[in-house]
């Protein structure tokens, strides 16, 4: 039964007109919001940014491209970053209005702010998110969502108790190549999946360095945040040095691997649970005579789900070599993260892929999903439970590597079969940072 048309034009005429629009590019749908085009100030979502370093500067243009966002404030423990972030945002709006706060709690106290982007170093992600949730803000937080399993669970509970919309910044669920790979797996194009393999690049090392005075313009106490105090050592703090220590970064496999465990969980439809076993091998640790860094240089991190499906993260090779591959009993499909290229066997799978689509480096789709959730209050794609489960996998792998043994895990109780391991699922935060 065809619908009655209200217009007097024939269907053919309508379609001829419609076809005139057909070649225009796809725009991220704001369908849930009715927000395409200009947005009245009263209907804008007001944002603030916490931690405006390298990652934030990369993703901020994605946020600022949304007409429905009004960015009004930034916060950072480093004065020069605060100044340059203000400059960037003021340039976007052609004003001098962006407010700056060295202490993010002052930013969170601003009543006009609806939501925050948290792009601090990893040590702050969960704690700052919980502070933001308590302040009534919705949250887009860069990955990893936490640095311990216990902290992640606490974040889930906090957001649930306070009705917070939280999106973990893993963004690949909104990326065409990854969505295509998932669709192909779910449609059975590679048969029954038995292994999900991924690769992150080799971890860095930090040579021994003596403590130095804290540079001017740094609030080092705020920079450390929930991490128990240790002296300021440039190599441990600056650049990506902080990534190479357990309580500030947890290493490359934990930081980057969560992107791929997020994909694995999504494709395997295990977003509310997780693997049951973790094991590591070939771990190469930094030479303690030369390096002060703690986290692994390379290694193989494995997990196994109850149904026998295996997950493997290789930490090896260079930055451009990262990928995720789903292997089934009738073929495989792979996304190369650096190029966004999809490969598959049988190759005929690739005939089904539509050309185009933004790569992961454009987080617009993921941000759009977050904005839609803020309006509708439905959970976004990478809500706290999803983010926590993906992060738990890499955390559990890390604990297995640190203890040098295979671990069994109960994804319901979130407990290991090993008491030492259970005690490594929580790290007491430094006061006054508590939630």
């Amino acid at each position, binding site marked *: 039964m*065809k*619908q009655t*048309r209200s217009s007097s*034009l024939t*269907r053919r005429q*309508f*379609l*001829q*007109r*419609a*076809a005139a*629009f*057909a070649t225009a*590019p*796809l*725009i991220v*749908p704001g*369908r*849930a919001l*009715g927000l395409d085009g200009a947005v009245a100030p009263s209907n804008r979502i007001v944002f603030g940014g916490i931690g405006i370093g390298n990652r934030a500067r990369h993703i901020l243009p994605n946020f600022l491209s949304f007409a429905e966002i009004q960015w009004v404030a930034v916060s950072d423990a480093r004065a020069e970053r605060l100044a340059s972030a203000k400059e960037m945002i003021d340039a976007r709006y052609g004003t001098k209005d962006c407010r700056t706060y060295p202490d993010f709690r002052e930013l969170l106290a601003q009543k006009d702010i609806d939501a925050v982007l948290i792009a601090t170093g990893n040590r702050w992600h969960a704690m700052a998110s919980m502070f933001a949730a308590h*302040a*009534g803000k919705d949250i887009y937080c860069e990955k990893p969502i936490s640095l311990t399993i216990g902290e992640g669970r606490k974040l889930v509970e906090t957001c*649930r*108790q*306070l*009705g*917070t919309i939280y999106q973990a910044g893993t963004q690949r669920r909104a990326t065409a190549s990854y969505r295509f790979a998932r669709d192909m797996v779910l449609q059975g194009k590679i048969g029954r999946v038995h292994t999900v393999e991924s690769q992150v690049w080799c971890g860095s090392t930090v040579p*021994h*360095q*003596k*403590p130095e005075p804290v540079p001017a313009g740094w609030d080092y106490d705020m920079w450390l945040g929930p991490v*128990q*105090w*240790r002296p300021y*050592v440039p190599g441990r703090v600056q650049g990506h040095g902080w990534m190479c220590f357990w309580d500030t970064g947890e290493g490359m496999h934990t930081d980057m691997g969560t992107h791929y465990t997020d994909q694995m969980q999504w494709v395997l439809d295990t977003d509310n649970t997780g693997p049951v076993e973790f094991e590591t091998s070939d771990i*190469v*640790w930094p*030479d*303690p005579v030369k*390096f*002060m860094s703690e986290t692994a240089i390379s290694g193989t991190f494995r997990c196994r789900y109850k149904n026998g499906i295996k997950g493997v993260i290789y930490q090896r090779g260079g930055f451009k070599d990262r990928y995720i591959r789903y292997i089934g009993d009738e073929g495989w499909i792979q996304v190369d993260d650096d190029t966004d290229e999809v490969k598959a066997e049988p190759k*005929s799978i690739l005939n*089904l892929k*539509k050309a185009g689509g933004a790569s992961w480096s454009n987080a617009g789709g993921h941000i759009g999903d977050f904005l839609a959730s803020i*309006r*509708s*209050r*439905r*959970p976004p794609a990478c809500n706290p439970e999803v983010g926590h489960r993906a992060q738990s996998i890499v955390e559990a792998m890390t604990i297995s590597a*640190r*203890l040098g043994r295979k671990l069994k895990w109960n994804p319901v109780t979130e407990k290991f079969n090993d008491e*030492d391991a259970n*005690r490594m699922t*929580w*790290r*007491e935060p430094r*006061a*006054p940072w*508590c*939630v």
Partner: protein
Amino acid sequence: MKLRTSVIMAALGIALALPLHAADMSQLITDAAKYESGQSVEPLRKFEQLLRDSAGKPALRTEMEVAMIKLLAPPATFEAKRFACQQLAAIGTDASLPALAELLKKEETTGIACLALGVHPSAKANATLRVALASAKGRARLQIATTLGDRRDAEAVKSLSEMARDNDALAAGTAIFALGKIANEPARKTIAALRKEAKPALARVVADASLSVADRLAASGDRKGAAAICEEFLQPAQPDNIRRGAFGLLLKLEKDGGEQRIVAALRGTDAKLKPVAIAAIGALKSRDASKKFAAELPKLQPAEQVFMIEALASRGDSAVRDPIRALIASADAAVRRAAIVAVGRLDDASVVPQLMDAMTGEKSPEELQDIETALVSLRGNSSTDRAIVAELKEVPAEARVRLFSVLARRGAHLAVPALLAETSSLNPATVQAAFQAVGKLAKADDLPAVLERLVGMSAADSRSDGESAAVRVLQKITDPAQRTDVIMARMTKCSDIDGRSSLLRLLPSTGDAKALEVLKTACGDKEPRIREAAVRALATWPNVAAWDMLAAVCRQPETETVRALAFRGLVRLAGDLNSKPDAELIERYRKLMSMARNADDLKLFLGALSGVAHPDALKPALSLLGANSVRPEAELAVRKIAAAVKAQHPEAAREAMQRLQPPPKPSAKAQAAAKGQPPAKKK
């Protein structure tokens, strides 16, 4: 370098795994106790290895703990103590509590002590913390209160309750948070009292702690107690997030899953809670929830309808299909788009006519894209594919192109006959799009039909589209000989010159010897257009097997066009061989150069030659330096070849590069002599 690192790592691993004697342990403790940033972390890593090795070895575990306890005492550095606390977090027993208690007494070491105490398995750790709390000040007090809360120490409630009334807001807030985590009856009482008496600055902390308490009560089965707290925080005066949290928990507490409360919210005017209510519909467990809430759809405002469509669609059952379908024709664009996206997820073939109707009217590109995506996503496999194919006859050419794309993305193989029929269109854009879809969808079995259509084409402009599609289908046949057989089977029945020419142009996609013979024969065909088509095909042949035939054409060309085609084919083949630069390749280039007839040929030749990493490739390039019409290309070729061979043939490269130098200017004397004048004297 990598190997060296691996060897070091392996040796270190062995060293770390060796058992330690008492003297070694003593030395290790001494070394670790001195640790400060900047020094070797070798002693620390040895202890970490001991920790790994001590699993299941009580004696070694005890030895390890004793060592860590020693590191907590003077003269150990702060960083050594910090390290020890990290290890004790994993292995500490009651034995370590006295030493940790000492650390709790000093503000600078309270935090690291709590690293170990936060996860300490013994209840005695609570007592240690409580004692310390009594005299702690400043950050140390906050730290200990937080840790007691994290440990949910019921016996700390009294102290924390006192602290919750501290004049210092930070201290009070910390204690209130801790009480919320403990949430036993005494803690609940304190928090309930604070709801009435706390300062406004602490109202949010008290509300947060209250929701934690409600959550704990709900988990323990006290629905009534939990609901009472939630109702209190549902009031409009409360902050939005607190109200949303309270509302969410209330829905979970109710026996009907919150259905009645959701209905009430939908019919009410509370704009903050209405979206939360709609979002909760997706997770409702009752069977008739879909039907019940779908009936609410028409009563909602457009923005709420959008949310409701998403929520109903997430339930995924058939009861929501018709109500959502009805909104495909909504007057509100956002509602229409939400409905279109939802039917794409939920629906099947039966919605295809409605989606086609939705394409009518002046729709935005985004909405048309949504319709296309929905059509691609529809369930129903072949029945949906058939329904879309049936619509092809109904729509105008421009919109048909969109449907071709839909069919291709759906992998709708059954659409191939209909798509081939569409290639008869007089509209080139339609033909092109139809052939693109055919190329994607057609299988080997479809090839005869595709070739039939190709040879029967009358529109010369679209012939290349048909040939491209046929090539894509041919590539799906793995055996090259089989590809040739299919083409030849059609060729034997084809008398049309354009059709035969098209078929000849497909032969390079086989790369097969039999196909090459066919082209050889065709080069001698009585019909000039066939001969030209054969040469064109040879010029695109994928491997060097066509070299001799192309060379023959080049030497005795029928026309200049044919010669130029053959020459370009040879250049391409030579270029393809550049990855294996050997004497045979040099010989090919030598012959190729001899076949060049004009500057354009030589430029092409030099372009390919410049990619040969062989010293003998320099000679032909150098020989062309004197030809003014190709001097720049020859120079470039010399530079590239010289750079490529420089490492292995430095002398040849150097000599070649010297030839690129402009000739030295003659001296003044020589110039003068040349002019018949005496040389000028220096001033």
